[in-house]
């Protein structure tokens, strides 16, 4: 079943009066945000609030010999100057490991470095002052004597005997290693008609959020309670971690997450400076605010994707893929990030490589090594862009080698649409995907034959255009299999509480969070539809551990699929409760009634029986008029967690059309397409925005973004002038198409859509560039980002 952007879905259980499922309704928070009335952390000001600035290590690796703080302590406005050793008395260190990542190890990390700084940018001292400017002024007065230590900055040699070990207690620089060998790989390669090998590099980059990381911590000594205003994706996870490392109970910690200016996975981790800010509030017994500036963001926000993957594919002459093999090496920071670990990304590369294809032979090795660089962890589409680049890069190189069309080779190998449930060679369980239908849709959407004809015509004029594709699968709606089974207090379930107010309007409290992606719109749509009111009668509350159901927050494309289902079910439950009241008032059977557009109606005739305002008036103010023994329950809570499948995999295919200027090595993006299948589409506009935004971040990885380090571990381009985020002028039009295969795990059937764009775009751009340059005999480009210099080198022009 295909849908186009705004068409209503076919009739299903989801279609009710006031059905907003499948509709591009505006976000309920739109007016507030566009009128500048959002509440970001920068907007939070509390009485006696102080500001902290962190002095950060200029060295990638150094022993802290001494810290002289006297001058800073006497500087104007300074409240306190606190070292790592002093803060260690307030907060315990943490270790970023998970039990289901066998053998993963890391060293204890402190909120502020104690004795040793392990990357350029690690906080080594805190200055708390009345203003951020005063705190920064005082930072300049702190005198730290460092003894520089050798920096480990090359992943390729991190495990060599001659390389210094960053944490002596660990014995070596290996954080995590995984090996997988499925089927008969050697035999399959031996029997292949063609074998292609290539080494892929995905450049270290980061997710640049419009709003930087930010936190205000407020320890109330009288109440013995910590309130943390936090730009985070996972308030309950952070509640647990703040409590654990301050030795408090979770009931002593409240995390409030109001508006968040983008997160992309950047704001779902434990950051030492945020933990330190919370600890400082406890130490100083007053509110402390930390807002990362752009310069410190570049050396502290998690980086991602720093991988070198040797890949190998075997194919028969008729295009059947016989085997995949990869050897992945990734250099993370000096610590595995807490609590999700820095092993997950490589683990995902192993899981996802070859994912769309029905190929039983697969061997993989992944090694994760420590480096004296900023920490690496999960960023939007964790591991996917890397696995998809390797897989799709190999598939198109193999197609070229045997002279087969790149779409045709995919048709011959993608899991058949009628062959589900299925399982990938790596063991991923697939409920229902639609690779072939998506491919066919894309083929038509891009007018593939026409595009190829145009490409050929222009080549004759010396214009080199390329067409590239990337099929992909995407992890969404994770169950406890992702983190819970590994011992992390990261819940995979989520809840929604829905209540009828005294005027008949609805409020929903949800455990998922709004990051600017429109989760609140989706929640309102689900509740309005299942309960039976117009959306303007629904108010959404998120991001408050005191007042929302316990939930996981927003990550791994879970907010709509999991949070939306909980909201849908809670709305249904409240409808049942309200109809029980209506039945009592109207002396009717509740099952003969329904709620439509905020009015209780006769289910069969639709005749209006009772307004919700009147129902609420009676239930709240004249319950004495209700039958004896009847109690109105006007608040309902429902929780939901996926149980039937570990993950709700989605699938899709992207295409890129671009032009390479063979004189300059510049790439001009002409058009981009994505056909994806996220199951039931709750809001097509929001899904398309997710796809487009994700594609743009993937284009960033392919062409622009890279955190450049020198051999001493100094980041060379940590500012917005030198680190190139993709900008609107260079972006192509991005067309979205959809196939709908709902998951049977929930009534809504919605899977996630947040990461599909990012997963496929880098591979797609890479393949298009190589398609453009193939007639010129250029070496295939596999080292992202594809800068003009790399393209000129491949063309032999420099």
């Amino acid at each position, binding site marked *: 079943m295909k849908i186009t952007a705004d068409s209503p879905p076919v009739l299903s259980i989801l279609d009710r009066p006031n059905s907003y499922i499948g509709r591009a309704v505006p976000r309920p928070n739109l007016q507030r945000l566009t009128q500048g009335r959002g509440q970001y952390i920068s907007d939070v000001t509390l009485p006696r609030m102080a500001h902290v600035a962190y002095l950060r290590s200029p060295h990638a690796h150094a022993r802290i010999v001494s810290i002289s703080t006297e001058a800073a302590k006497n500087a104007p406005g300074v409240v306190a100057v606190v070292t790592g050793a002093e803060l260690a008395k307030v907060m315990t260190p943490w270790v970023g490991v998970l039990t289901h990542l066998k053998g993963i190890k890391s060293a204890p990390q402190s909120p502020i470095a104690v004795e040793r700084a392990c990357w350029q940018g690690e906080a080594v001292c805190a200055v708390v002052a009345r203003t951020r400017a005063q705190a920064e002024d005082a930072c300049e007065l702190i005198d730290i004597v460092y003894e520089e230590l050798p920096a480990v900055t090359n992943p390729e040699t991190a495990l060599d005997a001659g390389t210094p070990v960053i944490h002596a207690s660990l014995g070596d620089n290996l954080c995590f290693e995984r090996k997988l060998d499925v089927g008969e790989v050697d035999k399959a390669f031996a029997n292949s008609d063609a074998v292609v090998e290539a080494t892929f590099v995905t450049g270290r980059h980061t997710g640049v959020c419009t709003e930087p990381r930010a936190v205000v911590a407020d320890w109330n000594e009288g109440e013995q309670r910590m309130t943390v205003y936090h730009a985070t994706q996972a308030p309950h996870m952070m509640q647990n971690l703040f409590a654990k490392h301050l030795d408090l109970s979770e009931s002593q910690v409240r995390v409030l997450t109001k508006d968040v200016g983008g997160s992309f996975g950047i704001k779902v981790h434990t950051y030492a400076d945020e933990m330190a800010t919370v600890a400082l509030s406890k130490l100083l017994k007053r509110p402390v605010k930390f807002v990362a500036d752009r310069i410190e963001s570049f050396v502290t926000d998690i980086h991602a994707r720093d991988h070198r993957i040797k890949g190998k594919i075997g194919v028969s002459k008729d295009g059947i893929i016989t085997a995949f093999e990869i050897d992945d090496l990734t250099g993370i920071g000096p610590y595995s990030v807490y609590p999700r670990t820095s092993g997950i990304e490589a683990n995902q590369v192993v899981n996802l490589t070859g994912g769309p294809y029905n190929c039983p032979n697969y061997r993989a090795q992944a090694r994760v090594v420590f480096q004296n660089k900023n920490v690496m962890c999960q960023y939007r589409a964790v591991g996917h862009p890397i696995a998809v680049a390797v897989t799709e890069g190999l598939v198109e190189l193999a197609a070229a080698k045997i002279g087969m069309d790149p779409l045709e080779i995919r048709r011959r190998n993608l899991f058949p649409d009628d062959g589900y449930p299925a399982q990938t060679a790596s063991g991923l369980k697939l409920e229902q995907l639609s690779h072939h239908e998506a491919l066919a849709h894309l083929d038509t959407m891009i007018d593939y034959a026409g595009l190829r004809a145009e490409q050929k015509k222009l080549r004759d004029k010396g214009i080199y255009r390329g067409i590239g594709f990337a099929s992909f699968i995407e992890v969404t709606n994770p169950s406890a299999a992702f983190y819970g089974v590994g011992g992390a207090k990261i819940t995979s379930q989520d809840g929604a509480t829905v209540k009828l107010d005294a005027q008949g309007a609805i409020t929903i409290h949800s455990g998922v969070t709004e990051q600017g992606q429109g989760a609140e719109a989706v929640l309102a749509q689900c509740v309005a539809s299942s309960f039976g009111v117009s959306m303007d009668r629904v108010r959404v509350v998120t991001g408050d551990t005191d007042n929302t159901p316990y939930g996981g927050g927003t990550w791994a494309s879970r907010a709509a699929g999991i949070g939306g289902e909980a909201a849908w079910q809670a709305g249904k439950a409240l409808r049942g409760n309200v109809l029980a009241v209506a039945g009592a008032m109207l002396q009717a059977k509740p099952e003969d009634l329904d709620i439509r557009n905020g009015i209780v109606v006769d289910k069969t005739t639709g005749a209006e029986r009772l307004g919700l305002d009147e129902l609420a008036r009676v239930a709240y103010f004249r319950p004495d008029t209700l039958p004896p023994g009847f109690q109105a329950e006007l608040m309902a809570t429902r929780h939901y967690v996926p149980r039937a499948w570990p993950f709700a995999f989605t699938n899709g295919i992207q295409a890129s059309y671009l032009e390479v200027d063979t004189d300059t090595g510049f790439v001009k993006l002409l058009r981009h397409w994505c056909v994806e299948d996220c199951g039931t589409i709750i809001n097509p506009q929001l899904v398309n925005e997710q796809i487009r935004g994700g594609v743009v971040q993937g284009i960033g990885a392919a062409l622009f973004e890279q955190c*450049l380090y020198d051999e001493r571990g100094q980041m060379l381009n940590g500012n917005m002038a030198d680190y190139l985020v993709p900008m609107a*002028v260079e972006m192509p039009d991005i067309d979205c198409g959809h196939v709908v295969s709902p998951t049977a795990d929930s009534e809504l059937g919605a899977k996630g859509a947040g990461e599909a764009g990012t997963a496929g775009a880098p591979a797609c751009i890479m393949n298009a560039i190589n398609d453009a340059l193939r007639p010129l005999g250029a070496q295939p480009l596999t080292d992202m980002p594809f800068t003009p210099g790399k393209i000129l080198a491949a063309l032999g022009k420099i």
Partner: protein
Amino acid sequence: MKPAPFAYKKARSLDEAIALLGENPEARLLAGGQSLMATLNMRLSAPSLLIDINGIGGLGGIAHKSGAVEIGALARHTDAERSATIAQHAPLIARAMPFIGHPAIRNRGTLGGSIAFADPAAELPACLLALDGEVDAQGPKGKRTIKTGDYFKGLYETALGPQEILTAIRLPAADSNTRIGFAELARRHGDYAIVGLAASARADGKGLKNVRLAYFGVGNTPLRATGAEAALARGDVDGAVAALDLEPHDDIQATGAVKKHLAGVLLRRVAAQLMEQRP
């Protein structure tokens, strides 16, 4: 990203600003602030005093007089971008304008500030050099005019004295024989170019004479490519590319070798622009 403490003074006249510069050797002039404020916020510079010259009258004009276009130091990029005088009489400036940053930057940034700051990767210093323009300056010893050939001294270093203020730039007005060319290569629109080229020439029958090629982004100052100029005047584009003697350093966006290659590509493109305009 908070600047170190500094004093602020709004100057009401050039004389006052010059006097303040004399009294405060660590002071900096604030015009559009598009480069200065970023360096302050990153604490890359920490002047004791900012002397705001935006309130000084008479420095924002754009005028065509006596065969020249005179642009006041405080004229904003956007003023030049929208000026009919610039479009008609200084077409190279008009051509370069859309490449300078983004509209928000052009709304505040001034032409005088760009020339005084003399960023070697910026468009306007190269345009000034390509056009063989002049810089008017005023200091404690009075006014003087500096030819472009004498103006660019080194990285962010100009002939302006410590107490001198750039008051205007003057460019020869274009006529029917004026030929101009401009091209730059930046990864993203509005960024500083990896390499750029501003050029001017005079039509000479079927050929060109007085060819001036000014590269930016390839050295410590905007650089003339004199060997290439001579070859282009002979109509020899291949010879011009071969005569390029630039030795750009590696930077974060490109190696010197890439820049050098791209300089040759730009030369061909700009040469075509110069020649296409032939009557």
